């Protein structure tokens, strides 16, 4: 190397990053008289000659793509559309807004006043048979479960049964963290506190009498939620109540969490599926939540056509925020519930593609002509 080994080192480092040469000049010319050690490597990478695919967009190359994509989308769209069209859905509004003359108006007013336990019933006709399994949803509108401060007002640690979560809920839960006496609330937070508490019972009119339709409440939440994410605190002496000792119920709840489903130890406390479904905060202000499924007994193959009656325990006030409540019966297909939009999008896009394809074809032909003229 050059006269000064130090300088040489700088040079050798290819990238002259730190040009703070300790010697002045950063050793710029130290290479003079040295071996040709400063010659850059002649590799494809350093000389930017890596083999490469260089796509060029033009009408010619885009044409087949447009046609193929268009046809594929049309086909998919048709499939989607028909599969969506086979889904039966029935919506029943039971908000009972004042002045609507609805059966539930009375209960709506009562719930607004704070009274609970009001029941009302709706009669409705199923125009056609709903093949099973039929899902029973409730739908709330104008209900912002996705409000930031609301949706974080929960303690997942507590809900997963961690003892410390029970005794010391997360800060996010406040002001529903402790009751006025300072006793920690379980389950804490605004979401749990505002648990949807209307209940529904379905009756089928057969031979002049209403027979109850059995509603299955198992498996309405995600399996991972009810089995992994949510779990009750460890039982003390086999008693869930003892496990919850030292906690208070959420202010809006009539009973403590462990009494959510008294009879079924697998569906009470934090692992109550209605509770779990509610705790999965909805993405949009108008949302449904799965309430029950009809898949048992006589109705395992679906709901027959006919008259039904739905008995509603109207507890949940929605009028204060101009909300609505609905009950929805829906069948399911391979792609979930009714979803006409996707099919339509595919159809529209498919046809748009084909249309554009034709335009591009015209452009392509015209350009080729022009090109030839240019050449001439």
């Amino acid at each position: 190397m050059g006269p000064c080994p130090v300088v040489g080192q700088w040079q050798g480092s290819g990238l002259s990053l730190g040009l703070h040469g300790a010697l002045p000049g950063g050793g710029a010319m130290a290479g003079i008289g040295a071996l040709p050690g400063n010659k850059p490597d002649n590799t494809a990478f350093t000389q930017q000659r890596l083999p490469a695919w260089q796509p060029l967009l033009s009408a010619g190359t885009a044409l087949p793509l447009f046609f193929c994509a268009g046809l594929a989308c049309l086909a998919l769209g048709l499939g989607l559309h028909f599969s969506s069209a086979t889904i039966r859905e029935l919506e029943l509004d039971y908000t009972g807004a004042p002045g609507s003359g609805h059966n539930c108006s009375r209960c709506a007013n009562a719930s607004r006043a704070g009274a609970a336990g009001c029941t009302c019933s709706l009669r409705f006709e199923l125009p056609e048979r709903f093949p099973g399994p039929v899902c029973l949803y409730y739908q709330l509108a104008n209900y912002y479960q996705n409000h930031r401060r609301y949706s974080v007002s929960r303690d997942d640690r507590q809900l997963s049964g961690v003892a410390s979560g029970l005794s010391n809920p997360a800060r996010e839960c406040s002001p529903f963290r402790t009751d006025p006496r300072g006793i920690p609330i379980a389950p804490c937070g605004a979401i749990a506190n505002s648990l949807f508490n209307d209940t529904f019972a379905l009756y089928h009119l057969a031979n002049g009498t209403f027979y109850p339709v059995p509603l299955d409440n198992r498996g309405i939440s995600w399996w991972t939620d009810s089995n992994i994410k949510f779990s009750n605190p460890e039982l003390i002496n086999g008693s869930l109540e003892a496990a919850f000792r030292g906690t208070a119920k959420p202010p809006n709840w009539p009973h403590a969490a462990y009494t959510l489903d008294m009879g079924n130890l697998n569906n009470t406390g934090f692992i109550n599926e209605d509770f779990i479904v509610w705790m999965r905060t909805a993405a949009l202000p108008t949302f449904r939540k799965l309430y029950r499924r009809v898949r048992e007994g006589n109705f395992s193959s679906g709901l027959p056509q006919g008259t039904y009656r739905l008995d509603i325990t109207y507890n949940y006030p929605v009028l204060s925020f101009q909300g609505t409540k609905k009950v929805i019966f829906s069948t399911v297909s391979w792609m979930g519930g009714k979803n006409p939009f996707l099919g339509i999008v595919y159809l529209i896009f498919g046809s748009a593609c084909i249309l554009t394809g034709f335009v591009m074809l015209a452009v392509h032909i015209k350009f080729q002509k022009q090109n030839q003229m240019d050449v001439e």
Partner: protein
Amino acid sequence: LKRKRKKKNENKWVVVSNLPFESCKWKENPNRHYDCNKIKTTKYTFLSFIPKNIFEQFHRFANLYFVAIAALNFVPMVNAFQPAVSLIPICVIMAITAVKDAWEDFRRYQLDKEINNMVCLVYSRKESDYIEKCWKDVRVGDFVQLQCNEIIPADILLLYSSDQNGICHLETANLDGETNLKQRQVVKGFSNQNTPFDPELFQNTIVCEKPNNDLNKFNGFVEQPDHKRIGFGSESLLLRGCTIRNTEIAIGIVIYAGHETKAMLNNSGPRYKRSKIERRMNIDIFFCVGLLFIMCLIGALGHGIWNGSFSERPPYEVPDPNGNYLSSALAGFYMFLTMIILLQILIPISLYVSIEFVKLGQVFLIHNDIDLYDEDVDLPIQCRALNITEDLGQIQYIFSDKTGTLTENKMVFRRCTVDGNEFSHQENAKRLETHKELDSDDEDWARHQHFALPVIKIEKPDTLKQKNSKPLRRCQSARARFQGHARKKSLGRCDSLQSQVAFSSTIEKDVTPDNRLLMKVRDATLQIESLASFPSAKDTCSTTSVTDFFLALAICNTVVVSTATEPRQRVTAPPLMKPSGISLERIHQLLQRLKLANLGQSFSLTQSSSDLGASVNAKNSKENPAATDSYNKDDISTHTCSNSTDGDYDTDDRADAMPRKVSTEMGGASLDEVFGSVSQGHLQPEFCYEAESPDEAALVHAARAYSFTLMSRTPEQVTVRLPQGTLLTFDILCTLGFDSVRKRMSVVVRHPFTNEIIVYTKGADSVIMDLLEDPAKADFNMGRKLRRIHAKTQKHLDWYARYGLRTLCIAKKVLSEHDFRKWANFRREAEAAIDNRDELLMDTAQHLETKLTLLGATGIEDRLQEGVPDTIAALREAGIQIWVLTGDKQETAVNIAYSCKLLDQKDTVFTINTENKETCESLLNLTLEEVRKNSNVERTKWNFFGISLSSSLPASVASSPDIGLVVDGKTLNVIFQGKLEEKFLELTKYCRSVLCCRATPLQKSMVAKLVRRQLKVMTLSIGDGANDVSMIQAADVGIGISGQEGMQAVMASDFAISRFKHLKKLLLVHGHWCYSRLAKMVIYFFYKNVSYVSLLFWYQFFCGFSGTTMIDYWQMIFFNLFFTSMPPILFGILDKDVSAETLLSLPELYKSGQNSETYKLSTFSIAVMDAFYQSLICFFVPYLTYKDSDIDVFTFGTPINTISLFTILLHQALEMKTWTCFHWITMIGSVLLYFTFSTIYNAVCVVCNEPTSPFWLMEDQLSDPSFYLVCFITPVIALLPRYLVLAVRGTFRASPILKAQQLDKLPKEQRDLEIQRWRSGKQDTPSIPMASPSDEVDRTNSNLRVSQFLGQAAFTPHGNNDTQGLSTPEMNHLRDWILNGEGNSSTRRWAREEATAANSLGRPCPGRDLLEPTRIASPGPFTSHLTSDNAEELTPGSHRRSVSAVTL
């Protein structure tokens, strides 16, 4: 801290020896206040790294912004995320930067350590000897002993040198890159070098100036105990970092140490400039801030209104911990802040870091480009500024220096005029042409190598052989042709050796003497001899001036002599003689006779001593015919680089050791010895002349060609061998170095025999001509003769300048002993002065250099660098305006401009030379008017075709008006002082090229600044010398050429290249790539952030503007940091929109960068609009799909996140023009990383990210068919418009870039054909001859120059006899030579132009109208030239270019 006190108080720097205080405590040492020699260039220490680095990083606005936002997130009222989580991105980014900084600092630390622990010898009193100490332990006041080839540890004042003359040689390559040796001299009072220096006896106090960074400025004095002061200057200072050469031992006292050394003070770090894109980007960031503000405002208002719309608090409205609800106004305000946190990434934080990485990558690739590597000096391009790579793609104006930048700065002696007689050196000219041709052969070969690289790789051994033979081939054939000597032996080796020595390529060294002049020299020496025998004749003027002329060439310089075999081994004295056979008596006898001989002004040759007279004559007559022979022999030895000189060296040293006086006397003593030396001369080693400037070396080589060989130089003596082999040793009484103010240098010598004191001066003709002795004062005859000589010489000088030679005048003056003594006293005083020493020195110099007698003048050719015309043509085609700013003469500059195609023969050239403001103004006005008239015609013409052209060739405004403008420094002054800048600029806008001659460095930078500021354009300055530094710094991009003139320009530059031609690829290819890559990347980043952030914004409309995110925060962070960061970075480094070959062959493509086509307001806003459109699609397709379903927040967010990932990546894919394996890997890798990370994270994290547990989301979605359906259709819809537009644009080839991309797809031959067609389509007007294989242009360059010269010679009405150089036979010869150039396009072109010019002469040339009324001839050096120029113009068919020059 303690040293500050003292330093502040004093203006002087006082150093005393450390030795008396060695046993004392350090506290008592008077030198304790000075820095120690340990250096520390690291920014951080181990402990201070974290706080200091964080502090430094907070200097960046973006970092502050993000930290502020992260801090805001800790405020519970407004937080949008988990407080701690929001610190992650800023921490990651700062950590990455910190790691980079730490690594850099560590490297610096290691280097420092290595340097600090280097060892040197320091005197210790305890040991009474020099002991080894580390550099870091050296203190100010220590005595340091330096040995040969040692690096100097600190700034040391030289007190002793083992050299008997008290000289120490330095190589300053580490400091300024100059490889020639510099001499340093022992401080004068310590020049008693016979006794070894004893530091213990040093009682003096050294007083000097305080540390500063001026390498060449240093002065002070040594105060002896008796208060006597001895002055010293920078010639006694050994600078840290330099290397001792050719000196066994040097001892000095440390004056400055460590960071106070000049080297360290000069060491400024890399420069940080802000590129145009970055400036543009900052504006757009403000736009983003505005956008952010609007979004937040909408959020705040929306939240307020939404909040206020409830009569009762709904259950989902959560009160604060105390159970209170906020008023809607306050809630709105809080929401505003929350939204800022939420939408913060609208300001692209990752952009800053990505840009840094991308620029590193770009710099790496530029640095590694093998085409920008210069094999001769083994230097790749240096990127000194790391962050303005993309500016290279946007240059609109180039300001170029001429010498060393356009030209090689390899000075070749070309012609000379002595005593009014011109010597054309036609043999020499021929030699140069042959050289050039061969050079271009080599270029061909090199080019071949470049293009056929794969082939070469296979045949490696073969090429290696070829490579070795390359220099051989050049030397051999070139020499063989004109000398007829075959010297096959060791030529190759010799060549390679030579390349290591500055300024001595073969072409510079070999000067073929002009036969006439050689005869004259021979006559002169003969005559002198005869005169010496019969000292009666008087008219010796002409002959002596010939010898004087060559003596001046050999002496009047600062060249250091060394030999080629051992390049750094200086020859201190010529290999004189064996000290045998000469009796003292005989010497005395000789001296006696010499004194008797009165030779008047001329000097005597030893041979002339009458003692040997007769035999001398006889011998001389024998020798004279052999003179050339001896020259040739000499040459042989030169090129065999013989090793047989070892013996001589021994004698050298001995001779060296002899007292000086004796050696001189003996030098002039005996003819036998003299002849002995001649015969020895055959075996003489080659002398390497190491000069500070190439002109000097060229002149010394020229003198040598006439057998006036410079043998040695010390500060006190200079020895020259005369043609007959006599050695003359002159005592140098004083050397007045060259400076740019005086523009001349002088040496004062005492003639060894006549004892006359002679001043030899050489310098710029304009200066010397004014300093000549007034002819009127001499007697009438002499006066007339002098006047004639002056006039003739002036004419020759004009001639030289006109065809691009650098001119120097040589003059002399004889001083009387008395005058000199007076002057010397004066000088000494000035030297000892500390205050305004420089002015005093200048004064004294000017005092001496008056009343000179003109000896002659030289014309030195500075050859154009290879590839310059081609490069300039290409750059111009790329739409770059090229200005040449030079300090050279107007004529020289104009001619270089023609030969490098800066000006075309058909251009109208306006020349403005004036010193008067009013005339300047009116001239500018007139010229403007004229120019406008012309361009209007052209514009209408263009409009006529415009409609049809504009669609396909929107950038074809290339029909530039062919107007050149030449102004000189004085005019520039007037323009700057008279506020005529705007008019000047207005005029230059119409000009094809602008030439500023005689410009000072300051003017150069002022011009660069003026254009940059007023026209708001991107400027680039390129230069190689110290005088270009200010210009380089004034421009947006400064490029230094690491050439012959040291490293100052390089140090000041952003990029340093070694050849001008590299500029072509640097700008056209790398500049274009860097610009388009970075511009696209920046736009993409804005797009990316806007499209991603607006997803969150759209969601606010569905969550009551409450600041909810539907995407898990970790996913969001990772989205920006990892999932979508790599592809754009890779894109920014590697994407190639057009291949290098196409970019080079179609310079026009550069215009896209110039016009900022990729990144401007419209593209930015389109990108932002597209981002909004895409985000709308990405949000609302899933929204409509999942509307009225039981989807939860994060399950809704997962497909949206996935969709936008696909959209953003596919958008990038559409932008990418090159898909290498790296691109595929990063693209696919990013997608895989996303899914892998998401599934793992969602499977593992049950409650880890409270309160928004993302558990099992991705798994759930992956099992849902509608997820796939949505993820397929949405990105496709989002990207359809862009795809459509790109496809249509691609079809219609809407831009040249797209067209070029399509050309790239074609097979090679077809592509070349297409490119040619494209270009020929552009050049309806054959203004720029474009031979597409560019080497042809190269080769024809020389012919062009000659033909132009021929044209001038042939058609100018210089009927003067003085133009002997262009006597008819020679001209014919030249013409033949040109015509014989087969297939030479230039010849044909020339002929064609001749024809057209003759035809078109009917049309009035535009310059003439202007010229006629304003032509006011004034007495001045240019007048004759000017009028003749005008005359040419008026003669029909005389001249092909119309020049309108106005001198006032």
